[in-house]
């Protein structure tokens, strides 16, 4: 590595004799030659930021890469700023982006000129689950009781951000139940959960990790999970319930499915060797016990995809987001 980076430096100095060595280098396994920027298109402290910093911590703790990984938050415009930065860094192999659903929602909702095809997909790391929560003091014990109440009178659903995943799920709920909901946006998932504990809203669609502690202390109650299959955790979280005891919304009679992407992308125009290096790195990250613990804590769906299947998944999800957002009237109006 050291040798290679020195020869790269001399090559940069313009010594023609050494320039000939560069293509040969590219043939062999590529490795980063300088610190790698890890762009988080969200603020510090959120779910994506946490995951990026866990990855950064795992990489440095287990010395998986010789160059450091530097986390950079670019949260402006619901992440638009971070995506545009990566889009503009064509062929820069020292840049990773972690994405959440705003990969699709931000360009659709704001009209910012960006699309996931402007980046190079590397790997889907996991999918984040969504659960329908109500306050434990509320009378609704099942999805059926909840939808009945919602049809009888407008319920208030709290969520993170506007025209993003939480509001999309709310719109899908309206479509599935014919009940109108009032969606109230807040800044972060933790805040949303507390608003529900304080009974300022009637329900939330928090990620498991955001609400689990309130569930365990007996203040919140999960009704169903917006996934095709039940969660995998079988360890008892409360006196008699485990993650796997929560029914899926579909089996509870509410046909809504939604999962949020936690994936890694690179700048456009990077070489396959460079993509392969980071895909390998992320595989090593996923094998560590620290990662397993994070997955278990957050009750993540640990599906991982890369290459062509990942691209297909992205294409499908993009189309689905577009339909959902169009139906809800969340698309940007051309001004």
């Amino acid at each position, binding site marked *: 590595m050291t040798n290679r980076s020195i020869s790269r430096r001399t090559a940069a100095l313009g010594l023609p004799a050494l320039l000939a060595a560069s293509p040969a280098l590219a043939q062999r396994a590529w490795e980063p030659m300088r610190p790698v920027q890890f762009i988080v298109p969200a603020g510090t402290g959120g779910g994506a930021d946490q995951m990026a*910093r866990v990855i950064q911590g795992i990489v440095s703790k287990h010395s998986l890469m010789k160059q450091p990984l530097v986390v950079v938050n670019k949260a402006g*415009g619901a992440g*638009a*700023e971070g995506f545009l930065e990566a889009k503009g860094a064509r062929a820069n192999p020292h840049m990773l982006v972690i994405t959440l659903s705003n990969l699709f929602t931000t360009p659709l909702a704001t009209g910012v000129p960006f699309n996931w095809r402007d980046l190079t997909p590397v790997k889907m790391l996991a999918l984040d689950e969504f659960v329908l929560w109500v306050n434990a003091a509320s009378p609704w014990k099942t999805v059926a009781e909840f939808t009945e109440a919602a049809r009888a009178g407008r319920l*208030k659903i709290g969520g993170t*951000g506007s025209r993003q995943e939480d509001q999309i799920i709310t719109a899908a709920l309206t479509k599935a139940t014919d009940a109108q909901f*009032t969606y*109230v946006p807040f800044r972060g998932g*933790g805040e949303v959960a507390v608003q529900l504990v304080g009974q300022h809203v009637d329900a939330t669609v928090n990620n498991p990790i955001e609400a689990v502690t309130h569930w365990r202390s007996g203040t919140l109650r999960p009704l169903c999970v917006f996934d095709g299959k039940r969660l995998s955790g079988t360890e008892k979280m409360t006196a008699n319930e485990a993650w796997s005891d929560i029914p899926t919304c579909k089996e509870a009679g509410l046909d809504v499915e939604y999962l949020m992407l936690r994936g890694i992308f690179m700048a456009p125009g990077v070489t396959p060797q460079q993509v392969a290096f980071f895909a390998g790195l992320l595989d090593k990250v996923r094998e560590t016990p620290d990662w397993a613990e994070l997955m278990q804590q957050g009750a993540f769906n640990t599906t991982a995809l890369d290459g062509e299947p990942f691209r297909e998944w992205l294409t499908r999800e993009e189309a689905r987001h577009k339909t959902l957002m169009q139906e809800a009237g969340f698309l940007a109006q051309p001004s």
Partner: protein
Amino acid sequence: MEEIGLLMQGFAVALQPDNILLMLLGVTLGVLIGVLPGLGGANGIAILLPLTFAMPPVSAIIMLSCIYWGALFGGAITSILFNIPGEPWSVATTFDGYPMAQQGRAGEALTAAFTASFVGAFIAVVLLTFLAPLVAGFALQFGPPQFFAVMFLSFACFIGLGRGSPLKTLAAMMLGFLLATVGMDTVTGQLRMTFGSTEMIRGFDFLVAVIGLFGISEILVSIEDGLTFKGQKARIDLKVVLRTWAEMPRHWAIALRSAAIGCWMGITPAGATPASFMSYGVARRLSRHGDEFGKGRVEGVIAPETAAHAAGTSALLPMLALGVPGSPTAAVLLGGLIMWGLQPGPMLFVEQKEFVWGLIASMYLGNVAGLLVVLVAVPWFAAILRVPFAIIAAIILVVCAIGAFTVSNAEFDIVLMLAFGVVGYVLKKLDYPLAPLVLALVLGDRTEEAFRQSLLLSQGDLGVFFSTWLGGSIMATGIALAAWPLLGWLWSLLRPAAGRERPSPA
């Protein structure tokens, strides 16, 4: 009492030699982070978080929370010496701290700021130790309408404090509000005032604006009188600490009141910045020397610093007990807890006693360590003013540029910072007051957000703000406070007062 026993166990954990070492390291790093504007507590902790990944959780949280204390202490330093608030909550400290430094009383101002911070934090920690579960319940009462009421109260505390032209005050405040709306509207997700520019989507970050408006513009104003900084003749020795301490007990009432405001705002969780403004406003209103605020009153340093530190400390309580962060820094610490496999929230106090009480014990010790570190350094900080202008001005400009960049990693923010510097220079010379502008900029978007969230919840019914006893009583207090200067103004019409030639602070 059960708490005392648990706390003692906590001390035993925190007082292990390697933890003490981490504590000192954390405080020193924190002061450094606090001094560099832009690289605030939240960014600093986020950056250092992965480094603590390999440590045991108790040691890691001790070090990180000490960085937090250090950053809280450090924010005051540049505010007082150069009029550059290193953190949003030290803006109010500049109002009187910087004039004190210009009068050669930098040492006194720094000592007062640090001591006040310590007192505020200490009171908040005591509250945390004994009342945590009770207070956590109180925080649950705060939904959007109550939150709006708190914001309204913050503004009400400040209305009428300026003595400049009312039209200019109004224009400055509206400019602040307007700048706060630029970017994405959090309620509907629409872009506002961006006029198609991608650089504008980010909006105007408060710190970028303040670094320019306060810091850069101050350099420009002060060099008109020649290439020097005022206040360089300050007598610098450790005796200034003792002398200031001898004066401090006189201000116990202000300290207690400010700590109460701070704890309240930290728990609600509105955070340290409104706490510092509110506390400054209240101190000025209730002081017999209110007219001298903004010209170098030591109370004007004590009040915001006590409140900011009390709020910063008590902001950890909702984080630990509810999993909702009371400040951006607490939000990052929250992420840290999850990484170490600890689930913040009500169960933490039950299941992770050793961790919680180790942390609380480290708050006591970390603040003592922080106070010692910064007090010993007071003469050195004050000595910075003796460095030749040409060197220090250039370094300040570089540090400001780095600070503006690191806030959101954008080069355009450096350009904005300079533009705000020129704007600040012009506004300052034309006697447009900057304090209302900054207050509106920092609280504007959150106030609007809370207002609109409330109306969404009530489906457009304005009565929602008075529908609970809590929100209603805060609103009523706010309205009374806002009306107070009006009454005073009517009174002054009847009896014209003397000595109002000087405009408002900053």
